[in-house]
C-alpha cells in the first residue's frame, strides 16, 4: 500500500498538493466565524450537483419547460426532493452570503492587503444574484414569467444602453423562446463558469493573505487548517444541508405555478430576498424610478467597493470604525424594514390575497390535468381544452358582464350559481321574479307556482332536471320525473314548449333538452331561436364573437353548475 502511494507521489507530487491545501496555518486559531466562506462553497457544490440532476430531465423550450418541471416535481422518483434542495439552496446561498459579508465587514477583513479579495467577493455577490434571477424563469410558470418581465423592464430603464441590454437578454422585444434559452445558458453555463473563475481568484487571494483574526486575538496561537478549521467548516455544511432538507421535506419541494400565460391575471412578486427592492419601487414616482432601480443599488455597490479605502485606519475594532460600519447596518436595517413592509402590505391586501388564491387554484388545476399527460403543443394547449380554467376565463370575460357567479359579475340576467340544478329549478318555480332569476330582466310573464304545492313542485323539478340528462351524469329519479312530466304538461305548457307541443298563450322558453349541453350551446349561439327563448329573448348572440371551441368550453363550464353542491 505504502509503496503504491510512494509511486503515485513520485509521479504526481500529490502529497505536496494535499499538504499545501490542508496544512495551512490558521493564525489566531480556527474559528466558527470563518465558516461562512466555506459554507458558500459547500452550497455551491450542492447547487452544481442538484442542478446537473435537474438538467437531466429539464427541457428549455417554451412548450416543454413547464411540463418537464412538472414531471420532475410529480413523476420522477425523488424529483421533488432534488428540485426542492436546489430551490432552497439558492435561498441558503443568499442568506449565508449576507452572513459572510457581515462577518468580513465586522472583522475589518477587507482592509489592506485584502482589498482585491473583497472585490472578488462583491463580484461574486452579483453573480449569485444573477443566478437567482435567471433560475426563477426556467420553470416558465406564471411566477417566473411575470417576475422576469418586471426585472427585465427594470434593466430597460438604464439610460442609453438599457434598451439594448433588455433586448439582448430578452432576445428581442417579445418574451418567448429566445428569452428562455438565453436565461438557461446564463444560468447553467455563463454564470456558473464566471462564478468558478471568481471563486478561484477569491480563494487564491484568501490563501495568499490568510484569514483575518478579530481585533485583540492571540496571534501567537496557531492551529492547522486541517483538521481544526475543516471540522468546523464541515459541521456548518452539515447544518446548512440539514436545514435545506428539512425545509424541502416540510414544503414538499419548490412551488410550481400555472404555466406562463401572457394574457392571464397574475399578481407577481419576486423572491423574498428581492422584496425590499420591489417595495422601494412603490414609493418612487415615474421620474424618480432610476433612484430605486439604478442609483441606490449603484451607490450601495460603489460604497462597498470603496470601503477598503474609506476605512483605511489600522484599527479593526468596530468601535473605531463606526462611521464606516454604520451605513452597512443602516442599509441592512432598511432592507429588513422594507421587506417587512412589503410582506405586511400583501398580507393585509384582500385583493392580493384573492388573486393569489386564484393563481394557486389555477396551478393546482394545471397540475391535476398534467397528470393525465400533456399534449405536444404544451401546457397552454392543454389548458385551452379545459372548461374549468379556459371556460371559466371566457365566462368571466363574456358572461359575467350580465350574469353573477360566485359573487362576481353584474346582474342584468339570471344568476348562474347552481344553474340547472334541482335547487335552482325549485327556487325559480317558487319565485321567478326574484332578483337572482328574472327580476332584472323584462321577462315577467311567469307567475310563482306555489299553488302547485311542495309535492308537485318537487316532481316538476325532477322532471325539468331530467331534461338535461346526458350520458355519464349521476342518475335522477325516473318515477318522480314521470309524475312531474304529467304536472308540467297540465300546468306549464300553455306558455312553454316541449318537443313539438305547447305554448298556446306565450312563446315561452322552449324547454326541450333544458339544461343539456345542446340547450346551453344553443342559448349562447342563438338565444332568440325557436329552440330557446324565441321572441322573449334579451340576450345577445355570441356565435359571431366566439369560436365553436370557445362556446363548447363555456357550455361545459356552465353545465357543471347543475351538479354544484350549494
Amino acid at each position, binding site marked *: 500500500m505504502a509503496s503504491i502511494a510512494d509511486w503515485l507521489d513520485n509521479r504526481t507530487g500529490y502529497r505536496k498538493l494535499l499538504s499545501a491545501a490542508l496544512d495551512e496555518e490558521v493564525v489566531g486559531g480556527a474559528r466558527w466565524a470563518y465558516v461562512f466562506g466555506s459554507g458558500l462553497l459547500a452550497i455551491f457544490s450542492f447547487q452544481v450537483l442538484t442542478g446537473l440532476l435537474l438538467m437531466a430531465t429539464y427541457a428549455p423550450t417554451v412548450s416543454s419547460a413547464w411540463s418537464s418541471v412538472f414531471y420532475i416535481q410529480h413523476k420522477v422518483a425523488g424529483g421533488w426532493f432534488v428540485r426542492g434542495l436546489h430551490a432552497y439552496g439558492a435561498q441558503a446561498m443568499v442568506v449565508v452570503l449576507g452572513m459572510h459579508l457581515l462577518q468580513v465587514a465586522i472583522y475589518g477583513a477587507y482592509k489592506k492587503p485584502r482589498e482585491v479579495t473583497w472585490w472578488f467577493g462583491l463580484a461574486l455577490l452579483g453573480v449569485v444574484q444573477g443566478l437567482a434571477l435567471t433560475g426563477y424563469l426556467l420553470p416558465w410558470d406564471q411566477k417566473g414569467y411575470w417576475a422576469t418581465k418586471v426585472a427585465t*423592464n427594470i434593466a430597460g430603464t438604464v439610460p442609453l444602453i438599457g434598451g439594448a441590454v433588455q433586448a439582448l437578454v430578452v432576445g428581442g422585444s417579445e418574451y418567448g423562446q429566445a428569452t428562455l434559452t438565453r436565461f438557461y445558458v446564463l444560468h447553467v453555463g455563463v454564470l456558473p463558469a464566471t462564478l468558478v473563475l471568481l471563486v478561484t481568484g477569491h480563494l487564491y487571494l484568501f490563501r495568499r493573505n490568510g484569514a483575518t483574526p478579530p481585533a485583540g486575538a492571540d496571534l501567537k496561537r496557531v492551529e492547522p487548517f486541517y483538521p481544526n478549521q475543516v471540522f468546523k467548516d464541515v459541521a456548518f455544511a452539515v447544518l446548512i444541508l440539514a436545514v435545506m432538507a428539512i425545509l424541502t421535506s416540510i414544503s414538499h419541494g419548490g412551488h410550481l405555478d400555472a404555466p406562463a400565460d401572457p394574457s392571464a391575471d397574475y399578481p407577481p412578486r419576486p423572491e423574498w430576498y428581492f422584496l425590499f427592492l420591489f417595495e422601494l419601487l412603490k414609493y418612487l414616482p*415615474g421620474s424618480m424610478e432610476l433612484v430605486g432601480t439604478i442609483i441606490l443599488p449603484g451607490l450601495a455597490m460603489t460604497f462597498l467597493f470603496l470601503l477598503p479605502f474609506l476605512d483605511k485606519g489600522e484599527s479593526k475594532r468596530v468601535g473605531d470604525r463606526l462611521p464606516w460600519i454604520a451605513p452597512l447596518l443602516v442599509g441592512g436595517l432598511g432592507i429588513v424594514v422594507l421587506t417587512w413592509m412589503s410582506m405586511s402590505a400583501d398580507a393585509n391586501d384582500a385583493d392580493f390575497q384573492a388573486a393569489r388564491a386564484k393563481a394557486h387554484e389555477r396551478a393546482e388545476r394545471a397540475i391535476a390535468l398534467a397528470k393525465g399527460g400533456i399534449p405536444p403543443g404544451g401546457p*397552454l394547449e392543454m389548458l385551452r381544452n379545459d372548461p374549468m380554467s379556459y371556460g371559466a376565463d371566457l365566462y368571466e370575460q363574456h358572461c359575467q358582464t350580465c350574469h353573477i357567479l360566485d359573487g362576481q359579475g353584474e346582474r342584468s340576467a339570471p344568476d348562474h350559481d347552481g344553474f340547472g340544478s334541482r335547487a335552482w329549478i325549485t327556487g325559480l318555480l317558487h319565485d321567478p321574479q326574484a332578483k337572482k332569476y328574472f327580476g332584472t330582466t323584462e321577462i315577467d310573464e311567469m307567475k310563482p307556482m306555489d299553488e302547485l304545492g311542495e309535492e308537485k313542485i318537487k316532481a316538476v323539478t325532477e322532471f325539468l332536471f331530467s331534461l338535461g340528462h346526458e350520458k355519464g351524469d349521476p342518475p335522477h329519479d325516473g318515477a318522480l320525473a314521470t309524475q312531474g312530466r304529467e304536472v308540467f304538461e297540465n300546468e306549464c305548457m300553455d306558455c312553454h314548449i316541449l318537443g313539438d307541443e305547447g305554448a298556446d298563450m306565450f312563446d315561452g322558453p322552449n324547454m326541450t333538452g333544458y339544461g343539456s349541453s345542446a340547450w346551453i350551446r344553443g342559448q349562447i349561439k342563438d338565444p332568440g331561436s325557436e329552440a330557446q327563448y324565441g321572441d322573449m329573448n334579451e340576450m345577445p348572440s355570441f356565435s359571431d364573437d366566439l369560436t365553436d371551441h370557445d362556446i363548447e368550453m363555456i357550455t361545459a363550464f356552465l353545465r357543471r353548475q347543475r351538479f354544484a353542491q350549494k
Partner: protein
Amino acid sequence: MGVEQSQPRRSFLKLASAAGGAVIGLVLAIPGLRYIADPLRRTGGQVGRWVSLGGLDGMPEDHPVQLPVIGDQTDAWTRSKDVKLGAIWVRRQGDAVKAWNAECPHLGCKVGYDRSKSQFACPCHESAFSPAGERLGGPSPRSLDPLQTRIKDGKVEVRFVRFRAQTPEREEIG
C-alpha cells in the same frame, strides 16, 4: 547566437504571438458577438397589428372588460396560430369603443379593474388609473396606453401594440 542577435528575435516572437492571439480572438469574437446580438437586428420589425374583438352587442355599456388578444405568432423557429399574445381592456360607450393595453406602463405587470373603487389597479406597485385610463397615482410614468380602434363590417377591431415600459412618452416596441 549572441545576446545582441536574440533580442530583436525575441521581440519578434513576442509580437508574433500577440498577433496570433489577436487573430484567434477576432475570428471567434466577431461572429460570436454578431450571433449573440442577433435579436437587436430583429427588433423594429412589424409593429402593431389589427385584431378583431367581435361585435358591439356582446360588450356591456360603460363597463371595462378585459379580453385576451389572440393571434398568430412567430416565436424564434415556431410559428403558431391563434395563441394568446397579451390582454387588453375595452370599454364601450354607445357606439364608441376605447381600448388600452393591459400592461402597466410602469414595469409591465397586468393591470386589473377594481370594481369596488371603479378604477384600474396594478397588482404590483399600486399604480392606479381612472376608468378613462388616466393615471391617478402610483409609480407609473404615464396613463394607460390607449390602442386605436375601428369598426369594420360591424366588428370592433383594435390595433394591438406594446409600448416600452417606464418612459414618460410612449414608444411602440412590438
